[in-house]
Each structure stands twice: as C-alpha cells, then as structure tokens.
C-alpha cells in the first residue's frame, strides 16, 4: 500500500484523494485478480513499493476494530483453524482495515445515494421457476 494515503486519509477531499494504495494482503483477498509479473520486472515493482515510507500504525480505534473482527472470527470458527490460519486471520483483519479507512475517509453526505436500486416488479406474472442443481452440495461433499 501507499502509506501516504493512510497518513492523510482523514483530510482528503474527493478531489484530492490520491491514486491508489496497492492492494496488499487483504487486497488480494478482496481483489480477485491479483496480478502477475515477469521475473525481471518483479524486482522493479518490489523496489518501488519498498521505496515508500513504512506503513503508519493504526489508530487505537482502528486497532480495536481489527481485534474485535479477529476475535469474532476466532470465536465462531476457531476450532476449525490451525495456529497458522489463526495468525493469517489476524494479519488479514489488519490489512482489511486499511482500505476501510480510506473508504470511510471519502466525503459523503446524507443525500449521497448508493448504487443499489430496488427494481420494481409491476406485472402480475409469476416469477420463472428456478431450475434445480443436482449433485453434491458443498456442505455434504467430502
């Protein structure tokens, strides 16, 4: 990620919001297309990221959110996770906080409408029958 954005996120206006932080660990979780590079270029990009100043620590409030999130996951699913996976959950919970901070810093007001629109159904025709899926459902599968 580009820590400069994190540092000043609270002050950024819509216009000023600088170009993107790299999607880091949780980014790969939330960005289905983590991208690849040829070996020769890998070094260049890795160096580019390394040239950025170190990441700003999370505020106490953000850290508390991270811990609450990780605790909720471990409370619910901890029994099925290995120690390594629990560490991964904590790391991903931390990484997730960074894009959330940037998103929350974006100025919006009460009249900012979301891109979720109710599609009204105005005719009386029944909805088409939903075809069935056969075979093994994931929770029954081995």
């Amino acid at each position, binding site marked *: 990620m580009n820590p400069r954005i994190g540092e000043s996120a609270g002050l950024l206006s819509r216009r000023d919001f600088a170009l*993107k932080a790299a999607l880091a660990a949780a980014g790969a979780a939330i960005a289905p297309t983590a*991208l690849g590079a040829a070996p020769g270029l890998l070094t260049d990009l890795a160096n580019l990221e390394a040239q950025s100043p170190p990441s700003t620590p999370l505020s106490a409030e953000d850290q508390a959110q991270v811990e609450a999130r990780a605790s909720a996951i471990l409370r619910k699913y901890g029994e099925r996770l290995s120690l390594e996976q629990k560490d991964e959950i904590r790391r991903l919970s931390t990484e997730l906080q960074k*894009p959330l901070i940037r998103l929350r810093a974006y100025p919006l007001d009460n009249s900012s409408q979301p891109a979720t629109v109710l599609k009204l159904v105005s005719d009386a025709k029944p909805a*088409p029958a939903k075809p069935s899926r056969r075979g093994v459902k994931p*929770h029954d599968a081995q």
Partner: protein
Amino acid sequence: MMLSDDVLYLPVSELGRRLRARKLSPVILAESYLARSERLNPQLNAYVTLTRDLALEQAHAAEKEIGAGHYRGPLHGIPYAAKDLLAVKGYPTTWGARPYANQTFDYDAAVVERLNRAGAVLIGKAAMIELAGGMGYRFASASLTGPAKNPWNEGCWTCGSSSGSGAIVSAALAAFAIGTETWGSIICPSGFCGISGLRPTFGRVSRYGAMALAYSLDKIGPMARSAEDCGLILAAIAGHDSRDRSSLSEGEAKFEIGLAASSPRLRVGRLTNAWKKCDPEIAGAVDDVFDALKKHVAAIEDAELPAGPFDEVAGVIISVEGAAAFRDLIESGKVAELADPLGRVAGYVNEQIPASDYIRAQQVREICQEGINGIFDTFDVIAAPTLPLAASTLDTNLEKNLSFPDPLGAIGNLCGLPGISVPCGFTSQKLPIGIQLVARCGNERAVLAAANLYQQLTDWHTRRPPIS
C-alpha cells in the same frame, strides 16, 4: 483427416465463411479441435472437461443443417469452450473448486442456450481459478485442475480467473471461448495470452446459469482471435433475459453486427494514470499503437481517470457480495477444501465487513460513475496498457509481490463499462503485450471499432505461440 494448424488458428469470421460455403466440414473441424485439445490439455491444464459426445452431436447436426441450406449465422458449426462456471446440462460444472467437483445442473446457462441456438459446437469446459477468485488466491495453482499454463511460455501463467479460456484460444484448442469478469478476469488473461477479449457492458449478456461471485459486477464475454470475432460472438450471446435481474432491456442489451462506429471519427484518450509504473517495453509497445492509429482517427489526446478510492470500493463490494454468495461454503468449513491457502481463510474475514461500509462503497460507486461518464463527453474510447507487466511465472506469490493499484479495472468494472484487450507486441522474453480500450456503457461499438481498426493495420493478433 485432421486439419492443419493453419486452419485451426483461423478467426471465427473466416471459419464461418468456409463452413457456410461447405469448404469445411463442421465434423472434421470439431474432431480436429478435439484431437488437438486432447493432445495439448495435459501440457496446459486448459480444460476441466472435454465434451466430446456433445461436440460431435452438435457438429453432425450443423453439417446436416448447413448441407440442407439452413445456415444459422456466423457461429454455425464453430467449436468453442465455456468457462466451467457456466451450467451445461449433463456435464459437471465445477466452478474450478474441489467442493463443487461433482456438481451438475439439469439445465444450460443462458449463454450456452444462445450459442446452441446459433449452432455453435461446445468442445469443453474451460479451467478456471477456483470460484473465479471469489475467496482470494495467492498462487496460479488456485484451481481444481492446477495452474493453467501460458502457451507462449509454459513456465508462465495465463492470468485468471478465465485462465483456461485464455490458454484455449491462444493455443487454438477451440475457435473461441467464453470467459467471465468481475474484476480483470477477461482482460488480464487476454493480455497475458495474446488474444482479443471483450468485457461487455454490465447486463448485456445474461448470467442465468452462471456462478455468482459478485451480483453487481459479474459479466460474461467472448475471448477470441480478433476484435471482429468478439463482435460476432457478442451479437450471438447478448440480449435481454428476465431470468437475470440485472439484464438490460432488449433494446439496450441487443448487439447487432455491422453497426460499428466509424473509426475516422473516433476520439481516443491516452490514459496517463492507469498504472503507477509500467515496464518500458510495454509502454513502448502501447505508444506504437497510438502512432499507428493517429492517422486514422479524429484525435488522440492525453486523458486522466478520476481520482478516488475506487480500488477500495471495488474490493469491498466484491468481498461482501462474494462472502454472501458463498456463505454456505464459508460457514460449513468447506472452504478448507479450496486449493489456495488464502482462499481457505479470506472468506471468514470478508464476512466481517460491516454493512455500513458496503453501502458506503455503493455511494462512492455512484460518484465514480459520474466522474468517468464525463470523460466520455470528450473521448469515445480511453486506452492504456492492459497490464503494466507481462505474464508472471507459475510460482509467483501474487499477493506478496504483485498486488498493485488498478484504477482502470476498478472503475471499468464498478461502472459496468465495456472494454477490450487486444495484442500489440511482445516483450524481449517473447511474452505478449496488450492494450485495453474502454468506452461508455453500451458503446461496445466504439471499442470494437478502435480495436478492429488497429488489427487491420497490424498483425500481432495473428501471431501463434510456440506450441503445436
């Protein structure tokens, strides 16, 4: 008799002409692609399933119909592959993931129905990244069938999630393939594999019968050898479908062949902020594209994408919608069966994203739409390198080394914009380079016209990988 590589690498447009004129047999064409696929698939991991029986049944039907003078159109008798998240009656639809390895559906996806009506011949189900990457992934091996290998260099990846579709078209294992994109999954494999791939406007192609990853972002589109082919295929698969809640009205969804925008009038925006850093070889190849086009279009000028946290917005929306789409898988613990270590845990984290953040992301999305729409008052298409890098090696840790901002991908997908990637050169390591062209919603004609113009001026799209 098996057909030569020269025939198997022909574009759909030319295969169609030969089939219509009965200079080519649909059965022999299907047999030839099947034989090539059976021979090369173990090398490339491009298919999950070959549908030999169905392919031959459809090819024989096409031969009979064309012979009787009943020609359905440019896809009649043309062999293709469908990404394995599209339901095909009677065959497994694995979604690329072990928990769904035995899943079958008793109906065809809408896009398969449409291709059936067009007389196309289904050769097989294309390999893919598990769940189209919906639970996250760190390695190219995140697939039920292992890493798809790039025909240009088998030590390199095809990109994902339409990984098999990219390899299949690139290696001429079928004449075209159907891919899907939530964020980059058509554009990236098209770039890495040196083929032409079209991401249609959101809602133009019905997703009925397709695995859902992110309900407000998923799209289905063609991957082929040329922009012209992409247009032919789009015309067959586009159209309203009441079974898909996001389907556009028939007037908006329909795409007709032969209505391409006039290229001399095209205004092209050369994006200056699509990538933070770009390999100089790739930047040079894309500069050459603008040089080639400048005498043939109305204008080429610098353009800038609007600034905003759009990568983050797209990420949050995909994460939340993906966690909802695969809630059963996450809660049951069956995510543990996924191939990728990141995929086994990321869903647990994504489930925890607050609803208020999801709605906030949807609010910023509206602002993003306003911002990008304004650019298209000045430009018909905006263009940038498809990717700032060429294909990665198979063992690259994608999360650690290669996650970087992709504002054009984020904005293009958040706003449902059509985009195409077409090949425009090679690196010194002989890996394909691509350029992507993006237009306003509904204006596939502009991206197809610009890409088609470029392909008339150059021959990069006709190059073949060193595999036979």
